[in-house]
């Protein structure tokens, strides 16, 4: 499909979300749309999908103007969209979800399940997106659910597929599978609009990149020649430092000591399997690994959110095994949770309230069971200033800040307390480039103040950039930590389960 957007403008009260956007997508092309959160990518795509109506501008498909009165029109015109949040019926099967609205029926309207199932299976195989048509959607992994969404669009014969942040929910392996499938679509002559704020992915899959900033296209680039640095600068609007500049670590005494730690889920499956390691004051130990290999339960167990089945965790020589979350936090542990929206913030609480979320009943923020709003607000003003949280005021609900600033809020709260150990889990996930840069600097600064830092990240680049020692989790077991430098290839192989002795023997020490 040849798609052209001409002068698309969309205004919301008080803000121009898209400002005279021109965009051309050639048949068989993967067109990357790059921009920070809030740059207007989703608005533009919702216009293209018929969910919003543009205030100005026109959409041309194969040279013909297209009028969109809703997603139905877009689908009819061959445009399919996979949203960031899936639009699936959890209790329906894969085939039922895919055929929803275009059901295959016998006479009298009885569903023809066998035929539905067969058609979906064929489509899945042809498209390189294997999925069991009869599985119930809510039982499937997120990555597989995404395939169902894509198949839904393909089944409706989408000639242009919009993928909105498709890799945000995927493991690196799943992302690679997705890229493979995308190449298959373009080989058939379909076009893809690929939305992401991750530079690397654009370079890996896009044929052409358009960069959106503040609602405007600020540049287009050829991914083969453009460097990540150039793209980042274009996206943010100023030079960005991608490499973390850090002095050599000065490790001191042991703060976190984990011995024979075992965690199981309710069904008795072992999630963390006999893990031993320690983190010293003044060093960053980074844990790499493909997501789902036990990093999440490990962090939850260390920070008092998960029951420890056996083994021991001590912080500064004091055992925190079996203690409540509150005890662990007050024992000098800072935690930047991986799921900011769920665990890190109360979106409807103000910035000030979120900044005392885990100190709400401690002096000086509370006296005689009464909140001391003056103290709380003064504290908030100081932290907002110190940690460069961009907010209209300290009374603004945290949920209205950008993702990066929400994360800075969490970082400010956790870093500012007197802590000996900092556990940061996926601290830059869903965060714009400018904030990533900032958070990385803060982690190093915290290390240099003499805090023990445990960083868990599925972003290999992040791990390698920040770690003083690196460990890898695979199937609940932890290998390492090994002192840096360790090569990216070596860590990658250990993430896939390779024996560390073998891998590291070839490494230059």
């Amino acid at each position: 499909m040849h798609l052209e957007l001409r002068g698309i403008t969309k205004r919301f009260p008080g803000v121009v979300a898209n400002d005279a956007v021109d965009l051309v997508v050639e048949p068989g092309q993967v067109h990357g749309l790059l921009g920070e959160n809030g740059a207007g990518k989703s608005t533009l795509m919702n216009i293209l999908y018929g969910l919003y109506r543009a205030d100005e501008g026109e959409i041309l498909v194969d040279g013909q103007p297209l009028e969109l009165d809703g997603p139905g029109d877009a689908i009819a015109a061959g445009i399919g969209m996979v949203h960031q949040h899936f639009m699936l019926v959890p209790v329906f099967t894969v085939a039922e979800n895919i055929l929803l609205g275009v059901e295959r029926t016998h006479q009298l309207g009885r569903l023809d399940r066998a035929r539905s199932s067969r058609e979906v299976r064929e489509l899945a195989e042809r498209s390189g997106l294997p999925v069991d048509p009869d599985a119930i959607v809510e039982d499937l992994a997120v990555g597989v659910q995404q395939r169902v969404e894509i198949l839904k669009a393909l089944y409706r014969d989408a000639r242009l597929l919009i993928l909105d942040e498709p890799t945000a929910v995927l493991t690196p392996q799943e992302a690679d599978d997705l890229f493979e499938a995308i190449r298959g679509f373009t080989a058939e002559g379909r076009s893809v609009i690929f939305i992401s704020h991750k530079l690397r992915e654009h370079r890996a899959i896009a044929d052409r990149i358009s960069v959106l900033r503040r609602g405007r296209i600020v540049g287009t680039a050829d991914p083969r020649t453009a460097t990540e640095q150039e793209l980042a600068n274009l996206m943010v609007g100023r030079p960005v430092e991608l490499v973390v500049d850090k002095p050599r670590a000065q490790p001191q005494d042991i703060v976190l000591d984990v011995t024979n730690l075992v965690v199981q889920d309710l069904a008795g499956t072992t999630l963390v399997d006999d893990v031993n390691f320690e983190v010293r004051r003044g060093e960053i130990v980074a844990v790499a690994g493909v997501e789902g290999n036990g990093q999440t339960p490990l962090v939850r167990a260390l920070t008092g959110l998960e029951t420890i089945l056996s083994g021991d965790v001590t912080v500064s020589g004091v055992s925190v095994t079996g203690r409540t979350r509150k005890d662990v936090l007050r024992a000098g542990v800072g935690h930047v949770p991986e799921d900011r929206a769920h665990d890190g913030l109360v979106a409807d609480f103000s910035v000030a309230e979120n900044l005392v979320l885990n100190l709400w009943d401690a002096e000086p923020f509370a006296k005689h069971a009464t909140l001391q709003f003056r103290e709380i607000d003064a504290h908030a003003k100081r932290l907002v200033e110190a940690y460069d949280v961009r907010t209209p005021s300290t009374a603004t609900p945290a949920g209205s800040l950008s993702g990066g600033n929400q994360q800075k809020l969490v970082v400010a709260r956790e870093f500012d307390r007197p802590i000996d150990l900092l556990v940061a889990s996926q601290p830059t996930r869903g965060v714009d480039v400018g904030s990533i840069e900032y958070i990385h600097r803060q982690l190093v600064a915290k290390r240099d103040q003499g805090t023990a830092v445990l960083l868990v990240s599925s972003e290999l680049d992040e791990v390698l950039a920040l770690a003083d020692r690196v460990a890898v989790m695979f199937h609940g077991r932890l290998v390492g930590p090994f002192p840096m430098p360790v090569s990216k290839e070596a860590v990658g192989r250990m993430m896939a389960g390779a024996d560390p002795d073998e891998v590291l023997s070839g490494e230059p020490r």
Partner: protein
Amino acid sequence: MTDRHEDDPAGDPAESGPVALSEAEVARQEIEAAKEREAAITHLEPGAGFGKRFVAAVTGTSVLVTILSFVAAIVIGGVIIALTEPAVREAFGYFFARPGDAFREAWDVVSAAYVALFRGSLGGRAQISETLVSATPLILTGLAVAVPLRAGLFNIGAEGQLIAGGMLAGLVGFSVTGLPLVVHLPLAAAAGIAGGWVYGWLPGVLKARTGAHEVISTIMLNNIARLVTAWMISTTLFRRPDRSDPISKSVEASAQFPRFVDGLRVNTSLLMALGLAVFVFWLVERSTRGFELNAVGLNARAARAAGMDPDRTVIRAMATGGALAGAAGAALILGLQHRLTIGFSAGLGFDGITVALLGRGRIGGTVAAGLLFGALRAGGRSMQAQTGTSLDLVLVIQALIIVFIAAPGLVRAIFRVKADDLATGQVAKGWGS
């Protein structure tokens, strides 16, 4: 190399030339964007259940929408008054022959009813007294619903908690004798509050420990309270010794809330209600417990991650709600009725749900809504007496208010309130899925 649009304000960072977009400018833009979102976004965790979405929709409703809901309900109520009046219907029958008649008839009927409603609630000392009398238990049951609502819980059980509180307050009120007022009245009132506390604590524990949904358990507990009351009042423990009607003994004078003025029914239970409202305001809006309560209600996972105990907070919220409903029972029995009968609760606990919703779960709002509903009740009686408009109209208006508040999109559509366009879309979508 990157192509570049000529109007790109950023200059060419690849050559590390002068950066047009300064750091300060970026910060300013981020702040602007946050302001926009602050005005527009209703926050909900993805995958929030119906109850959460309902609570969020209610507590997230703006003051404007709340007032407009009330206005819309009054207007529709007026249409109903007009249409149920035979003379108006008759006049509409020949509408095209003489349209003025129809409108005059309708106007006369509706305005007469509403004037009576207004005069009956605020028209004089006695009327204001009646408004306050009706408002006292409504304020308390409203708070009984509002406090758990802030913790994300929907307390349908205020009715049962009110019954439990009233029964206990009454029991202490008539079976203990010989005490002075300063001892007996607080004792009886405390018994009522304790009865409601226990009756609210129970579904809280069931929710926290076993996951039993509070809506279901409180509905069931309402039934239990109602039936147990019916039985207990017939027992010799409660029943008047000289009569066989299911009416309890009368509360001793020493356990009755004294009236302010002879001849007016408004009594000191109003002071208890307002005092508790002030306490609850502190508890919910100013105390550390309230901080936990709100955090758990808005995001239980984040509350737990911050070191709070959501289970205990749920129990506390329900018990507090129960205690407030129990206080309503005490106010009713010790302040007004002075005896227990089957059905003495008269649905006040259920009205509390409407009051809390109209008050958007806020403490001040709930007190105001309680006063408003008290006025509607007192005025409704007078309207019935003077214009013959059925008392059920007041119930219709109450029900319409709930409908409009529960569906804020409807109000926005009717009145074309623009500002919250986006938020409505999100909430409405959430409801459908």
